């Protein structure tokens, strides 16, 4: 498959991927650093490159609400946001998943207020981790593009029918020009396929009621159905990723492994920071330190057994969270990984780093690797640590 090599920012790459799905409707409200993504898409529409109807709403709450109305009506629909915009959508983010509407969202990661900060961390998507969306994290513009093409196939699968959030780090990925390969439009669309909604409000000959009052006698069964859908979703993420790999040569799994096979110590990380970590891992590998990396691509559904298997038998594991869970036991990824590792006798330590766009530098990775060596040797390192913050 011939794929054009292009230089695009993450925002442009995702806008392009979404356009290739030929969506009927998009609704969005601007927020930094998502803005460019919608600017690009609006340009496509203004230049007749796509006939998507864009609803330029008055808030993110309405962006998500209009997307719900559109998807329930039977249209392929997307939205995009960041940070506080995502927080304003919150109520409807849950409703979207509960109504089983396969909307796609580009979530350009940015710190939540306050204080107000426009730079990257994962507090926005992590805050929405229990809302019921499939969450795919990306390390660079290529992965953001690939996830944004695959998202439609995954969410719209008849056994899944769940919304999918493609996340990529604000500014670091969204605003940085990067080289990536893109599928030709027709090939991408053929891969994604036509949208076939299960039910549609616009099918007025077969009227349906969506979102009824649901009380003690049925609500729990409906939630049980929804809970069951995530196991199916994981299977579909895997099969769609395999198919995509065969088409493009770029293979994806739930997680990416880097020098993991013989690693005695492992860092678990999400998003763009994986690139920095890989560089430092190379340095330590050159010194004979057996350290590797597990980059989580699919955080929801959380592949607990898969991750536990990958980390089993290691001497020490460090989980890096680009968000805090205030008052909780470490960051959200740490909590999940440590819980998945229960009974495995592998020491797991947590690190919170990079909040509000604080640079994740080589020194921070080195510090984690030094700690890992200490833990592996039976030394003491706190369960949860802050990285790169002045004391």
């Amino acid at each position, binding site marked *: 498959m011939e794929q054009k090599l292009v230089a695009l920012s993450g925002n442009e790459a995702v806008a392009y991927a979404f356009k290739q799905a030929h969506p*009927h409707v998009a609704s969005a409200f601007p927020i930094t650093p998502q803005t460019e993504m919608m600017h690009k898409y609006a340009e496509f529409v203004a230049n007749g490159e796509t*006939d998507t*109807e864009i609803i330029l709403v008055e808030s993110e709450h*309405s962006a998500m*609400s*209009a997307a719900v*109305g559109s998807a329930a009506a039977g249209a392929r629909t997307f939205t995009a946001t960041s940070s506080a915009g995502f927080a304003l959508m919150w109520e409807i983010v849950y409703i979207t998943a509960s109504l089983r509407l396969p909307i796609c969202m580009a979530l350009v990661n940015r710190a939540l207020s306050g204080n107000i900060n426009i730079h990257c961390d994962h507090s926005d998507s992590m805050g929405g981790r229990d809302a019921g969306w499939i969450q795919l994290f990306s390390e660079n513009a290529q992965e953001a593009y690939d996830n944004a093409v695959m998202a439609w196939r995954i969410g719209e699968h008849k056994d899944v029918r769940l919304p999918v959030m493609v996340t990529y780090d604000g500014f670091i990925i969204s605003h940085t020009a990067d080289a990536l390969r893109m599928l030709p439009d027709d090939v991408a669309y053929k891969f994604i396929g036509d949208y076939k909604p299960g039910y549609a409000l*616009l099918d007025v000959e077969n*009227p349906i009621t969506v979102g009824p009052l649901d009380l003690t006698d049925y609500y729990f069964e409906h939630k049980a159905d929804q809970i069951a859908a995530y196991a199916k979703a994981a299977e579909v993420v895997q099969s769609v990723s395999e198919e995509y790999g065969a088409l493009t040569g770029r293979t994806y799994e739930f997680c990416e492994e880097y020098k993991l096979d013989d690693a005695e110590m492992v860092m678990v990380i999400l998003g763009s920071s994986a690139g920095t970590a890989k560089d430092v891992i190379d340095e330590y590998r050159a010194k004979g330190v057996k350290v590797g990396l597990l980059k989580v691509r699919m955080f929801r559904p959380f592949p607990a057994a898969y991750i536990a298997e990958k980390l089993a038998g290691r001497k020490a594991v460090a989980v890096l969270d680009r968000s805090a869970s205030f008052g909780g036991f470490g960051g959200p990824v740490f909590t999940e990984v440590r819980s998945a590792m229960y009974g495995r006798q592998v020491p797991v330590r947590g690190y919170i780093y990079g909040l509000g766009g604080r640079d994740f530098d080589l020194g921070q990775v080195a510090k984690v690797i030094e700690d890992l060596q200490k833990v592996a040797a039976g030394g003491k390192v706190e369960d949860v640590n802050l990285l790169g913050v002045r004391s």
Partner: protein
Amino acid sequence: MAVNLKTLTHNEDLLSGGHRACAGCTGANILRQVMLTAGPDTVVGSATGCMEVVTTIFPYTAWKTSFIHSAFENAAATISGAETAYRALKKRGELPVEREKINFIAFGGDGGTYDIGLQSLSGAMERGHNMLYVCYDNEAYMNTGIQRSGATPLGAHTSTAPAGTVKQGKEQNRKDLTSIMVAHNIPYVAQTTPFHWKDLATKVEKALAVDGPAFLNVLMPCPVGWHFDTAIGQDLAREAVECNFWPLFEVENGVYTINKKPKEPTPVADWMKKQGRFKHVFKPGNEHLLEASQQFVDAQWEKLLKLEAMTNS
């Protein structure tokens, strides 16, 4: 445009019986009358509220048309999305069933419309979607237990602004939402009541015929929140018009028409006296509240007359 009773009665009733509206509720009358006029090719959206709760308890639905409820404050945004989907699919020839026209109607109570949903409504109206928003205004948050709203009139007793020993119910006048909607410069805005069925049906027909957004504010006497005998809800709707508390009027492309001008408006106190929510207003020492209520109604009516004269000159 003239609505014909014969035709209306032959139209399919699109809200089935067996829903759980309270005895004497006039809200279900509003839904039925709107839907009789709109017909089956309609997608209905609803804000969380009385009418949503009583018509859709799973596994039952009273709706014979497509219906969506998402949340409290977003009925307008939700229906604006469905309406956009219609245009997008139609453009590509991908509608599930071919229709020349599908109506998009959002219903919301005064809570979901005057207050928590005002931003969503304002946005949808400004964007120009081809949709009708119907507010069933029962003048308080009845669904959650009769709390005061921006639509609650001065002096009315509610659970959050009760009449007590030092406070006498709501301390503010009601918000004029209909005027706020007129200020959006949309093609059609009107006020009506379920007692005036012909007026209501005609207004729904006009609202659905315009190209663009339309808004209908419908007074909905509520026996539970207003404290009156379940038999007199429709009478109270009629009397609200006769005392000028709730004038019947419409604004077509900015031009006002008052549809009913009472020759001798009854005192607003006569209307209030029949409702338990105003009981304390009639106690000695509260005369000023009665006076202020009448003054507010008179001032609003005078303003309306001027707007009619001004926009028709």
